[in-house]
């Protein structure tokens, strides 16, 4: 029972990271109607950026976010302008292929620069842990969770307390109408893509500390993230957060109760169940995008 409880707590803590990574993905979908299959690769890229800073200049990965998040944001804006915006016809289908190709390119480049050996951000506090009522919780999971809560909070403030956030939400609700009332939807799209990348950078740090990764890790990541946003309802921020926490708890508990080799499989079981009973996901489709 203790093990199950520990797994559940761990699930919530790691779920926060997945919630953050998935929120970037669902935000991009909500604003642009495209599935960024490259999100997993961008998370891995974020992890490698932090790894490079850490290895070369011994910059703490959490501190390094001050650098990596803006860098990834700018990279996102650039990627959107070069690869997504030129797509005029059949945008939804072609964007999946383009972002898939980007993922492969990033995987290849990371392999060339960092080799395909597994790496981990071995910060000194990685192994530190503290007891809570009979359980031992690793420090990094708590730091990671707090970081995710902070960033998700900032994202919520941006979306619901600023004019720019209102423009994003308007674009999510109805692109054409948003354009008609004078919102520069192309600019909103570029910035949303950049914000999605910045969340990937932050997610990458926590991912890189808690998990060993290599350039090919993005396949596993993206299949999880895609399941999470379908479960939450495409374009719904709240859905992404709830589904992220839920899925990781389910996975971690399964891994304790059944076996770790089948734990990842729970994602697909849940996905099938969702599609059979509620294809639009927990929080519906675009109409209720993040409330």
């Amino acid at each position, binding site marked *: 029972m203790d093990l199950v409880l520990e797994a559940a707590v761990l699930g919530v803590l790691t779920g926060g990271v997945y919630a953050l990574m998935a929120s970037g993905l669902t935000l991009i*979908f909500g604003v642009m*109607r*495209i*599935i960024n*299959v490259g999100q997993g690769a961008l998370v891995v890229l974020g992890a490698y950026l932090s790894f490079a800073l850490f290895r070369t200049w011994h910059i703490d990965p959490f501190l390094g976010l001050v650098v990596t998040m803006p860098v990834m944001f700018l990279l996102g804006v650039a990627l959107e302008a070069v*690869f997504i915006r*030129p*797509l*005029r*016809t*059949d945008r*939804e*289908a*072609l964007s*999946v*292929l*383009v972002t*898939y*190709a*980007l993922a*492969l*390119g990033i*995987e*290849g*480049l990371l*392999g*060339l620069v960092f080799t*395909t050996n597994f790496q981990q951000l071995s910060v000194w506090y990685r192994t530190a842990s503290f007891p809570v009522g009979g359980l031992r919780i690793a420090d990094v999971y708590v730091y990671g969770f707090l970081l995710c809560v902070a960033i998700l909070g900032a994202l919520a403030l941006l979306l619901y307390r600023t004019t720019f956030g209102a423009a994003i939400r308007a674009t999510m609700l109805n692109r054409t109408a948003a354009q008609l009332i004078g919102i520069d939807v192309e600019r909103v799209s570029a910035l949303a893509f950049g914000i999605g990348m910045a969340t990937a950078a932050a997610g990458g740090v926590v991912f890189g500390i808690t998990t060993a990764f290599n*350039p090919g890790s993005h*396949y*596993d990541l*993206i*299949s999880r993230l*895609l*399941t999470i*946003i*379908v479960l939450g309802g*495409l374009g719904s921020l709240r859905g992404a957060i709830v589904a992220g926490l839920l899925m990781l708890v389910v996975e971690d508990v399964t891994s304790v109760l059944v076996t770790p*080799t*089948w734990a*990842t*499989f729970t*994602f*697909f079981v849940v*996905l*099938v169940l969702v*599609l*059979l009973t509620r*294809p639009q996901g927990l929080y519906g489709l675009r109409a209720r995008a993040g409330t």
Partner: protein
Amino acid sequence: MRPRPGARWLGPGAATVLALAALAVPLVADTSTVNVGVFTLMYVGLATAWNVMGGYTGYISLGHAGFFGIGAYTLGLFVNHLGVPGGYGPFLAVPIAGLVTAALAVPVGWIALRTRAATFVIVTIAFMFMLQILATNLRGLTGGSQGLGFPTPQDWSPDFVDVPFYYAMLALAAVGIAASWWIRHSKLGLGLLAIRDDEDRALSLGVPTWAFKMTAFVVSAALVGMIGGVYGYYVTYVYPQFVVDPLVGLSMVLMAFLGGTGTIAGPVLGALLLEPTQLELAYFAGSARLYLVLYAAVFLAVILFLPRGVIPSIAERLEARRSAA
């Protein structure tokens, strides 16, 4: 538009010449060329099969590598259990690989086709990764990450061994093209194109959209499964991560897009252009990482500069010239 009298024979004429050339290749070419031929024909078949679903209906599946894997494992398990020796025997099991893949495609399609557009793409990706996990975890059945071996043909000389596979792939590509042609010229094909243009409208006009989509999905999957079976036998050993390979699933899509989705000749042309290029790139790059980078670059170039594909672009230009004249 009404084609000129001469143009009417252009398509069938080109197809006949291509078919004769394809039949003659193993008679004149060396082993390494035949080897390239096997993979090229494999992708002609795969891209054509993918196009039956993805091109005609506009439902983009990125998970067809899953069906490829199902076909390969089915053929391998079948011949191993029956103790079929290497030789021509295993080729007889190819239709069984197709049937099993079709049977498994029904529940997959049932679930995946509850969704549309973006969600459909996601579901197909998830399906592929799910199969990869299953192939790895069901060790008793698939051999897990140790892989599954196929019987090896003992009495085929190294010079000859590629030839039967070449003709097997050619036959499957021909079946695929015939199926694609037949569907395109039938009521089913019209319905599928109507679904691509506007599914709700097609439904309201009386197109049985669900049945049509299912049919296209299952036919497409069965063709891919049969090709997967021949592939497994050709490479003699299949591993979960190499037979359910996202790159395979992606390549067939890219080829269909390069040639032109929704056309019959497009995927064929795309595969003929791209697969030899891919093999050349892999050879040139040496390392898998550099290959990935180059592959991604080719991919991006195709999508950004030729989003509608070669065949539709040429057809458009011809039509413009004709109407100008």
